[in-house]
């Protein structure tokens, strides 16, 4: 698969003035996104996610490094034909209705009247705003603005969708609908690059992730690879065994809903413990491998204990 977005050694320092010291927002980050992937860009607040996205979209000029979008440099105006962009906490012209707003954006993209009309109808339906096209945007809730923002980013049916914190402001139903839209776009061969600090959403949809901390990428790779090497221990649920007997086999357990739950630590032999339980008349209900979650990896990179 070809690389549709390549960021190489990107650096950005926000200039200082008399009162504020200069602040290095990006200290040399590199990553690439392949066509058809869903790429999650993870990081705590102030890590540099939005700065990176603003560099890609041409809103900020990096001090060093290169960005190529479908082979075109980010500073070429024509490179912006390749992507649609949803800013974080979008605010749009509140005096326009949803359809007027999409019409305005369509004209900026040099789309014809008929193309805009047809596409607007499709997209407003897709994002759950059908029938609300003549309501001024000032009457829209935050979630509705997020949806209309998503619609404008998809207007010209771009190959890449760049979404900055797309899940913020959405209720659980809205988040599920957005995930479905993202999956549907991936099915159509589109590439989705999104930033988020909502780990569950990233874990549910991303093919590849990059964790950005203090302006540099701390970890990146296929989500499946990041998580597969990290089976930490096993959780064994047993029953039909006395507490005294179980205490002799393994010291750490809890009693819950009529079952004993044993959580094994690193280096403990799962097979031996299972055999001992069976040998002493107990019954194994389940043995579950406990993997590291994205949250564990994320917090580890932040240098914090979960």
């Amino acid at each position, binding site marked *: 698969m070809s690389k549709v977005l390549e960021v190489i050694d990107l650096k950005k320092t926000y200039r200082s003035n008399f009162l504020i010291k200069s602040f290095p927002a990006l200290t040399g980050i590199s990553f690439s996104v392949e066509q058809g992937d869903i790429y999650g860009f993870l990081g705590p607040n102030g890590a540099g996610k939005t700065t990176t996205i603003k560099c890609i979209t041409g*809103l*900020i000029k990096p001090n060093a490094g290169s960005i190529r979008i479908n082979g075109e440099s980010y500073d070429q105006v024509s490179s*912006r034909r390749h992507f649609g*962009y949803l*800013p974080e906490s*979008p605010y749009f*012209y509140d005096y326009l209705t949803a359809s007027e707003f999409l019409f305005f*954006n369509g004209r*900026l993209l*040099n789309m014809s009247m008929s193309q805009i009309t047809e596409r607007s109808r499709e997209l407003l339906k897709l994002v759950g705003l059908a029938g609300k096209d003549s309501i001024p945007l000032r009457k829209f809730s935050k979630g509705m603005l997020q949806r209309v923002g998503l619609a404008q980013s998809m207007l010209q049916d771009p190959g890449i969708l760049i979404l900055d914190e797309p899940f913020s402001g959405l209720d659980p139903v809205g988040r599920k609908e957005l995930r479905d839209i993202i999956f549907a776009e991936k099915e159509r061969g589109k590439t989705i690059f999104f930033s988020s600090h909502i780990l569950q959403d990233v874990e549910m949809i991303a093919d590849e992730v990059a964790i950005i901390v203090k302006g540099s990428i701390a970890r990146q790779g296929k989500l499946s690879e990041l998580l597969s090497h990290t089976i930490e221990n096993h959780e064994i649920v047993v029953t039909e065994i006395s507490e005294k007997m179980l205490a002799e086999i393994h010291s750490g357990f809890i009693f819950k809903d009529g079952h004993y739950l044993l959580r094994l630590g690193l280096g403990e032999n799962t097979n031996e413990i299972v055999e001992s339980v069976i040998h002493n008349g107990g019954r194994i209900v389940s043995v579950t491998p406990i993997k590291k979650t994205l949250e564990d990896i994320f917090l580890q990179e932040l240098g914090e204990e979960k």
Partner: protein
Amino acid sequence: MNWKAIVLNTLKEAIRNKIFYLLFFFGLFFVFSSRIIGLLTIGDQTKVIKDVGLASINFFCVLIAIFTGINLVHKEIDKKTIYTILSKPISRDQFILGKFLGLLLTVGIALASMATIFILFLVLTTGKFEASLLLYFLMLFMELAILISISLLFSSFSTPILSSIFTITIYLIGQITWTYNHFKYLLKTPLTRVLTDVVYYLLPNLHKYNVKNEIVLGTPVAIGQLLVAVGYSVLYIGCILFATLMIFRKREFQ
């Protein structure tokens, strides 16, 4: 031609703004009140109507140009609406030129509407049409275009309050810069004279557009003055827009 979308959206934004209507209708109110003032004045009523009516149109169009212009770019940055525009295949130069033309169109429509109403009002009152009024409005339009370019320049890097202070100050100074030629002999040192000359040429000379006395008194306006005014507008607006583009190209939207 995607910059046209910026022009039309700027017009749409202005005409959906309550301040625009407030200033527009206040302007018309003063135009009509010129008749009452004319009735209360001893002397040539037509002259008073023209005097008050033209001054009202001038004053309220200047206010529309300044108060719409100062928000033009700053609001886009402040409200972050600019993010979705500049991330589209549209250059920053196109954005600024689109904004300028959009406001020029807005002020042009306001001026044309007020002028049409005033001319009709004058025809109904005096029974005759004065073509020279069109020249007055053309000169006023050129003056407003300069003012729009200045307010756009300040709006590209400053807040609306500071922009309005700067623009109004420059507008007022621009009305009297021509007097500099009468007292520059008072400047003794060559350095002071050079520095003052630089400031003189940087500030607009809006007196070039003042033909109100000629129009009200019915004296002819020299064709040379009109040509100089047109040339000066093109040159001055070109320089101001160039400076605005230079500043805006370097702006970052954090």
